């Protein structure tokens, strides 16, 4: 008999004569303590994210590409990784061409194998969209796909994320329900709640462990 059969057989023997417990999931326990008035929702998100060293800016939707350029300029960064196949990616590229911005735009348009070294060591910053955010825990929801790959939010030392103000939900449970997660998840769904950090030495908090050292969130107010 295979290991699989043996394990299942032992487990079934252990359950003999018992009945499965009914599902008594009380959703109020994970929703009620985590509800916010619309005007407080973004404030909650913002303050939680700022507590863990995230920079948060709220701006009019049309102004974000200029803000991105400013962020790069202030930090004297040379390049920015972006997703050319996304709406915001195209918007960014148009702005960059018009403004004749000097920072180099790097398009994530080929498999990682073709430029692993470069991605690992030479990219200064990246910009991605988000699939919303969760106020209760101060988390961004990232839904990577073929246009906006997984490593964009992990490898560069600075990660800039665009968030639509209207897509901030109260808590994880509501987010799952609204976006109907069980119906179809991407290869790698992510909740990101700040820059990478560790407290493994003496519990002293240090940022930039393996992922981004800085996370900047641009909250876009719908015009």
């Amino acid at each position, binding site marked *: 008999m295979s290991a699989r059969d043996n394990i299942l057989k032992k487990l079934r*023997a252990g359950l003999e004569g018992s009945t499965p*417990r*009914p599902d008594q999931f*009380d959703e109020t326990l994970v929703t009620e303590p985590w509800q916010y008035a619309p005007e407080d929702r973004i404030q909650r998100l913002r303050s939680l994210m700022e507590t863990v060293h995230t920079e948060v800016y709220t701006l009019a939707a049309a102004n974000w590409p200029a803000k991105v350029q400013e962020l790069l300029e202030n930090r004297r960064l040379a390049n920015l990784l972006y997703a050319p196949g996304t709406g915001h990616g195209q918007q960014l590229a148009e702005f960059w061409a018009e403004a004749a911005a000097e920072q180099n735009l790097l398009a994530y348009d080929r498999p990682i194998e073709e430029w692993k070294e470069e991605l690992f060591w030479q990219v200064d910053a990246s910009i991605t969209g988000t699939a919303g955010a969760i106020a209760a825990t101060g988390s961004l929801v990232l839904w990577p796909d073929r246009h906006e790959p997984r490593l964009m939010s*992990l490898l560069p030392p600075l990660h800039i994320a665009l968030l639509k103000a209207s897509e901030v939900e109260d808590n994880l449970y509501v987010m799952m329900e609204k976006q109907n997660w069980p119906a179809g998840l991407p*290869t790698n769904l992510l909740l990101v709640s700040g820059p990478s950090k560790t407290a493994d*030495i003496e519990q002293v908090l*240090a940022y930039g462990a393996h992922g981004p050292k800085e996370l900047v969130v641009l909250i876009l107010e719908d015009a």
Partner: protein
Amino acid sequence: MSQRIPVKELTDSFRGRAVGALADAQLRTNFRVAMDSLMKKRADAFPDEEEREGLRELGNHIKARALSRLPDLLEQLEAKLTENGVHVHWAETTEEANRIVHTIIESKQGSQVVKGKSMVSEEMEMNDYLAERDIECLESDMGEYIVQLDGEKPSHIIMPAIHKNRRQVSKLFHNKLGVDETDDVNELIQIGRRTLRKKFLEADVGVSGVNFAIAETGTLLLVENEGNGRMSTTVPPVHVAVTGIEKVVANLRDVAPLLSLLTRSALGQPITTYVNMISGPRKADELDGPEEVHLVLLDNGRSGAFADAQLRQTLNCIRCGACMNHCPVYTRVGGHTYGEVYPGPIGKIVTPHMVGLDHVPDHPSASSLCGACGEVCPVKIPIPELLQRLRQENVKSPDEPAVVQGGGSKYSWKERALWRMWMALNTRPTLYKCFLWAATRLGKLTPKNLGPWTENHTAPVPARRSLHDLAKAHLNAEKTSGDRS
């Protein structure tokens, strides 16, 4: 302080190691400071008692419900994952699990493995197994990396290097990596980052654990703060996840309360920096992610605990470490004293099922039964009750069937006979009276050496008159004086 602790030969046992740890002032300070801070963080993360208790109840319900149909859920998980393109493997023993992992690596001619933090891989001693086969298996969690670099084992399941301070880490990095010594924690972390980033880039295979495996969607969920888990599961062309069979939950929504309980109980954080939900390998048109994803489901004694309805609750554990943070014994003796992968209260109830009670006979007894562990457990495992149960299992006579492997290892016919006598003495009044008479009159004859008791205490001498006698005399005197008035 150390002088008052009796000098005992350091043996390869819990007791022996505990004596050594208790005399190590640096180690005790490191743990005391860390545990105090972790306890405070947890308390601050649950300011509302009602909310906390409701959530713990729900956490317990979700795990109990999942365990009540564990074999079905495992099959569902397997079917869903397979549908998503993930290869599922089953292993009864750690040896089998290691062989599976090794075969996968070999099939890719891999020689370098990076590992995200995984307690199950510690259980398997995967690093050593692979090293013996000329495969480098490098820990990438900062704490695990430090511990591995020093040839040690983790001393805490969440904070593996908690027993070390920054000077010790600095010396270690200096000696092993040839970098300058520094007292700056940020600089130490950046040294780790640079060293490990190169390893992520080169690795042939990434290994990780799993915090929750979701049957409904075929999803492996991992929590972490550093990003090394994401690196290990995204960069190398192959990702192998290893996990215990108890980690499966039925639905995605079950994860909402469990996540909150886990990160708040473990670190006092509302959530970890990353919650990484993996539902398959890289799709044909995607540009990164591993081309192959494997899941190894490990039993290693878990089905043994599962067979007993009471001991089954051990499998509720979501590995937050809150029980050890609040344990007065763990705080004083540290994680290494337990000599096994899982230290602290959870280690004491889970290890016997993995290695047998006879290998860890002192584990269930190394507790004052103060109850703190059970009180803070986010999924309400009655740890003190289970410790008592394991104590009973370990003194069962050889004639009784062993429920836990290696049970009855502390059985002693002398002890059993002594307790029988004690019972007889206390259930037969005449016998009891005779004993009491003798004990009070002949108390001086009590031996000076009473085994373990007299190691730390002076031998007790019975009083010349029993409480019973005194009370009787007192009542008589009162009666007489009452009659007079």
